[in-house]
């Protein structure tokens, strides 16, 4: 029997009150954004907002809860944007969205930082059961894709350095049940021949840094992976591969049926970029459809999730999406 686990890839919208408070405290310009060294007042706002989004997830009945990544002003580029060896320069477009982040330019050695671990430590204080906490990191391929290198010299060395850096960050995490590694660039800016193998090795480096008890999910979105990239990715050692069934269900289904997948999958079945709220029944149906259409597979778990990060949505819609996801796995349990 396949277990259905309700979760999200994190990177949440700030509650509306925090949007206002932080804009007043921090300002609107690029030098006002998070640098890893926020003042007391700003930290207090983030703490309150973190507690709020954890509470929302728990109330919604999600099976995994995330810290929320509310401080990630630069979205997936955050772990670099706050690093001492990184300069943040102009504002650049975040994938094909009407969203922007500060271009992180790596100008020195990417030594251990610990920023994300500190957030997770704070979150773990707020969850009753350590079993339910889920960490979120950008995948090494995506983080390298979002950044610019002025230190390591060539693409391979840069990707390796990013992977080693992320592995070091993951090693410092408190105990978590699940680690989501977000790799949208594998779809949006796919690696070329040869590069795909190195991308897979880099992901392996990050995934292997998690303790054995942590389930590692590598999540891809904004379409389907090229067949070869998908095949190479399966060589890396992790527990579940994530697919975006909102943006492209046909090719993702094809990849799974044609090449097989990991023991478990993450299924992006809720649209993280549209205010149309799927109800719990629809979400459960999409999971049923997925199981019916992958006859050769017998998944240990399906992580039911939004396809993308959630900061694109207004806060009220975000709350409704969490509630629907939480309820969707309860439906399955009742039916079972």
């Amino acid at each position, binding site marked *: 029997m396949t277990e259905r686990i309700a979760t999200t890839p994190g990177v949440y919208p700030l509650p509306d009150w925090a949007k206002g408070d932080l804009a007043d405290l921090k300002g*609107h310009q690029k030098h006002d954004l998070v640098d890893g060294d926020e003042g007391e007042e700003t930290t207090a706002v983030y703490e309150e907002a973190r507690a709020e989004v954890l509470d929302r997830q728990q109330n919604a009945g999600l099976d995994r809860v995330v810290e929320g990544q509310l401080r990630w002003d630069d979205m997936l580029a955050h772990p670099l944007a706050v690093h001492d060896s990184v300069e943040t320069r102009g504002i650049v*477009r975040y994938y094909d969205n009407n969203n922007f982040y500060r271009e992180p330019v790596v100008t020195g050695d990417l030594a251990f930082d610990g920023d994300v671990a500190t957030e997770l430590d704070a979150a773990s204080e707020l969850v009753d059961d350590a079993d339910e906490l889920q960490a979120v990191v950008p995948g090494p391929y995506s983080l390298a894709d979002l950044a610019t290198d002025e230190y390591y010299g060539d693409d391979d060395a840069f990707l390796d350095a990013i992977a080693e850096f992320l592995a070091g960050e993951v090693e410092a995490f408190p105990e978590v049940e699940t680690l989501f590694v977000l790799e949208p660039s594998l779809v949006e800016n796919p690696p070329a021949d040869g590069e795909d193998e190195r991308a897979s090795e880099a992901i392996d480096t990050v995934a292997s840094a998690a303790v054995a008890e942590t389930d590692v999910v590598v999540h891809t979105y904004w379409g389907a992976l090229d067949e070869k990239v998908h095949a190479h990715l399966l060589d890396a050692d992790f527990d579940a591969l994530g697919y975006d069934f909102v943006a492209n269900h046909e090719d993702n289904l094809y990849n799974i049926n044609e090449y097989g997948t990991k023991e478990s999958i993450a299924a992006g079945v809720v649209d993280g970029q549209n205010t149309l709220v799927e109800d719990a029944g629809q979400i459960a149906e999409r999971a049923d459809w997925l199981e019916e259409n992958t006859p050769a597979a017998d998944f240990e778990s399906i992580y039911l999730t939004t396809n993308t990060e959630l900061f*694109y949505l*207004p806060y009220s819609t975000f709350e409704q999406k969490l509630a629907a996801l939480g309820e969707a796995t309860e439906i399955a349990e009742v039916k079972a």
Partner: protein
Amino acid sequence: MSRNREQFRPEGHPNDHFLLTTVVGSYPKPKWVDRARDLYEDDEADFDDAAWQEAKDDAARLITGEHERAGLDVVVDGEMRRNEMVEYFAHRIDGYEFNGPVKVWGHNTFDKPSVVSDVEYDETWLVDEYEFTASVTDRPVKVPITGPYTLANWSFNEAYDDTESLSHDLADLVNTEVEKLVEAGARYVQIDEPALATTPDDHAIVGDCLERIADGIPEDVRIGLHVCYGDYSRIYPEILEFPVDEFDLELANGDYDQLDVFTEPEFTADLALGVVDAHDADVESVEQIKTNIRKGLEVVPPEQLTVSPDCGVKLLPREVAYEKMANLVRAAREVEQELDAGEIEVDRSAATADD
């Protein structure tokens, strides 16, 4: 060259050559307009609809006058009545609803609307704005309108199968609005499509939308298209097929590194060339702007050249915005004189109407 350009040449224009000077649209709001808005939105303040209307009228009159003083041939009210380029229209179109602010970057947010049912035309969007502006100036007034593709693409789409079908329906509404504006006397309309820069592969959708917008609009009405901050090689030369008189392009920001894109094949429409940077608070000198204008003459002859800033200037300090406009006009007039005197060699002759 479009046949409707000459109507904007001012009476008594000092030079034989005429480089049409204008702005893209938005202009910095005077601080007291923001204060008035705060008061209007504060339930406890004694500031009613009439007071807020008066504040907006005052601001529109003031900025229109500022454009006149800078010497612009075609003026705008600086979009003093509009809060944001998508929100403003979404509030006036049936089928949209709002669920709260979303992040654009950092702590900059906007109330990204959701399309929840078929979009329908309700009240007019811009006729009052146009009529007021036209009543406070003797100069021709341009009306910028956010384009249907941008209205579709920068909204959440809950109701339509895809962006294309939503864009088409919105284009029909824009067409209705343009008809009403023309009825009210408008002769210069600019469709703003910044979203095209994010998804240049959708240029065919934008083209279809413009066909719908231009449908039934008399030829003496000048229609422009503003596009900014994108990779133009991905939309040129396809955009030349669009039924518009003029393309208004941001090019100063990239120091004209994309200018070559437009030289082959020949640029057959009019070019509204960005000659001052909308996001740099340093005021370009007249000499610098003249150099920029000459860049435009590498693409089109003077008869097809309009001179304007790269983009809306609302984020600049107001005095900087004014100085940029004033220098832009001075530079254009000086280039006209040099053209009259034969001191500037023009590579290209005007495209004929049959091109």
